[in-house]
């Protein structure tokens, strides 16, 4: 009994004396990187920007009065042929170790995306610190560095602002997609699916956005806003889509939770607004003579949220007509999206994967040429079942 204890004790003593603590890193020695931005320099190397939290100036730092003056984040940049090189080089400018476990956002500039993402994610996937649940956005119109530099008023850390916007706008508007690095990698590795990523733009003057004054005004000089959807083909960005086309993509991807559709009624163009509450999209593959075709079946449920025309919504037969009209509207959006994608020869919908599941042997034969030969001519049927469940607190509007 005495011996094991003695051995344990001696072991600990030795261990402490000999080595200390290897993987230990004190919080005060870490620079918590909350977002990474990727640009290309003129000579084709990566320009990496790291948004580092300045803990003393964020909420929770009320004690010892750190907050008032400073900015909550700082941007460090460095260049390198590889991401890891750039990251290591940044340590020349930084008094702390860059720490990636809390990197929740990756911003990639349009330029990099157009030249190809291959290789960008490997380091992120391989590193034990970096988490692939980090969100991915493409900087549209400005460089990633500029996007990360803008200071934001409500969520002090701009990366958090972007992440939360992504999340809530996907939930309530349905024209953005919350893509994380994991999804992007999946899109890159799968032969039957390509990636879509939401774009982020700066509204206003990015030069002003860097300053603390930006957050001291009720109308900031520069704001970050989500806009557009980048369609990728393999690892390259090929096309931006906006508005209803953008939503069409998300309908097929089954990523819409809530959104608003306005349909014309009795000659008035934007007459009745329909709010979806639950959407379910299914893909069915039909094979005819070895030629696959796809049936996209969308079921939505929702309420009437606004009307601009007099209509008696208590009449359920009228509701059926409305449902049909809504269905047509959605169908139009989806068709538009599919046509765009087929035009760009990129299957962002995962139709290929569906074919793979339905007929693995056929897929084996056609997967090499799927995007370029089969997908653009794929017959896609869209079927929408929209249903109106409730009409809110009123049945007929006051408009007469």
């Amino acid at each position, binding site marked *: 009994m005495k011996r094991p204890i003695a051995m344990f004790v001696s072991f600990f003593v030795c261990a402490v004396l000999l080595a200390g603590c290897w993987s230990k890193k004190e919080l005060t020695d870490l620079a918590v990187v909350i977002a990474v931005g990727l640009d290309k320099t003129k000579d084709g190397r990566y320009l990496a920007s790291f948004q580092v939290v300045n803990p003393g100036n964020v909420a929770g730092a009320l004690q010892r009065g750190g907050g008032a003056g400073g900015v909550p984040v700082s941007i460090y940049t460095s260049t390198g042929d590889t991401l890891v090189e750039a990251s290591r080089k940044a340590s020349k400018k930084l008094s702390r170790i860059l720490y990636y476990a809390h990197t929740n956002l990756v911003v990639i500039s349009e330029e990099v995306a157009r030249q190809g993402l291959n290789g960008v994610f490997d380091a992120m996937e391989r590193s034990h610190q970096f988490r692939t649940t980090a969100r991915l956005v493409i900087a549209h119109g400005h460089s990633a560095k500029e996007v990360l530099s803008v200071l934001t008023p409500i969520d002090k850390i701009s990366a958090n602002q972007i992440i939360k916007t992504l999340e809530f706008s996907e939930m309530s508007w349905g024209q953005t997609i919350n893509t994380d690095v994991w999804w992007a*990698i999946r899109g890159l590795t799968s032969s039957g699916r390509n990636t879509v990523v939401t774009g982020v733009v700066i509204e206003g003057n990015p030069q002003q956005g860097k300053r603390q004054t930006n957050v001291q005004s009720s109308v900031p000089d520069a704001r970050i806003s989500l806009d557009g959807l980048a369609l990728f083909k393999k690892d390259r960005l090929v096309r931006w889509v906006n508005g209803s086309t953008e939503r069409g993509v998300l309908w097929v991807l089954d990523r819409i939770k809530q959104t608003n559709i306005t349909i014309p009624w009795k000659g008035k163009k934007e007459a009745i607004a329909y709010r979806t509450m639950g959407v379910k999209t299914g893909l069915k593959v039909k094979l005819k003579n070895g030629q696959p075709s796809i049936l996209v079946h969308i079921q939505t449920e929702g309420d009437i949220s606004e009307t601009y025309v007099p209509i008696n919504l208590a009449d359920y037969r009228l509701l059926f007509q409305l449902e049909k009209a809504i269905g047509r509207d959605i169908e139009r959006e989806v068709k538009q999206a599919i046509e765009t994608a087929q035009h760009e020869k990129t299957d962002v919908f995962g139709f290929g994967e569906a074919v793979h*599941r339905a007929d693995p042997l056929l897929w084996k034969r056609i997967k090499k040429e799927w995007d370029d030969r089969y997908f653009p001519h794929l017959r896609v049927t869209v079927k929408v079942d929209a249903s109106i469940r409730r009409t809110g607190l009123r049945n007929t509007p006051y408009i007469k």
Partner: protein
Amino acid sequence: MEHSKINVRQLFVLIVLFEHGSAMVIPLGVSAKQDMWIAILLGLALGLLLFLVYERLFHYYPDQPLTSYVTHIVGKPLGKLLAVLYITYFFYIAARVLRDFGELLLTFAYPETPLFVLNVLMAMTVMYSAYKGIEVLARTGELLYTLLQILAVVGFILVIASGVVDLTQLQPVLEEGWKRVWKTVFTETLYVPFGEMIVFTMLFPYLNRPEKARRAAVAGMVLTGINLAIIMAVNTAVLGADAVSRSSFPLLDTIRRIQVAHFLERLDVFFMVALVIGGFFKVSIFFYAGVVGVAHVFGFSNHQRLVYPFGALVLLWSVAMASNYWEHIHEGLKIVTLYLHIPLQIIIPVLLLVIAAIRRRFGSSAK
């Protein structure tokens, strides 16, 4: 020899913990792609057959471990040789699993720490448990079994709740027919973890009711097989077959995908608990079997004195066996399977059983 006894329930628990061991965390049967869960279940079915061979042998010699009854079956000189071979095998696998375990920790949490240091801590604990004996290990198992079950259920619920499970990723089932699956079974899943049940031939004599050994062991193996199949199926459904096969630790990746209510995320410590407990039991049981085997074969009355020298041996072996992770894995998948698992888990036990059965039938008077 130790005179302690374990009961049937404890045997069951030990088997479950042992079988889960490292199998839970490593990419098991990934060459079958999205059909890996089928490969695991088939491995289980064949493993059960193999286990019946071991159980039959135990049935013939209910109060002796494997290393003792081989001498009865094949005679003294050859028997001793085989016994030593098995003991070496047990120590080697103990060292291998210890290495696996150290590598895992090193890769995902302690990249700057020397492998040796991590292994020392584990090896000390293993030695302590071996010193205390099988009874204490079994009781510890009973406590930790409950803990692991709770963790598993909670983890499962969280994975489901984060909405990352996409069952379509398990399709198409049997994309390339049965061939790929069977190949995986015969190259991977049969031996690890099911064939490793051979080590329990060293522990059966401690059972207080030997007649129930079969029921407990089969129940343990089936439960493990189903659990592992579920784990790998969930991994596949969350990550996709491609990512699972590229990942060093699919379970870790799955756990990292958990995000519930902006709060229950970053649960890597779950993984670490499962990893450490599983690894601990696997190393402990192999190590204990080895130590008891030495005590038996070389006639030591007390196995406790052997714990430290052999513990040090296993520790050093674990560090020295390969120079990098993939060399280690390559050895594990190719060399060990071909030259160690197949002969020691299948060929020799089957031969032993045949000889023993023949002796039983025709030579009972010779005894």
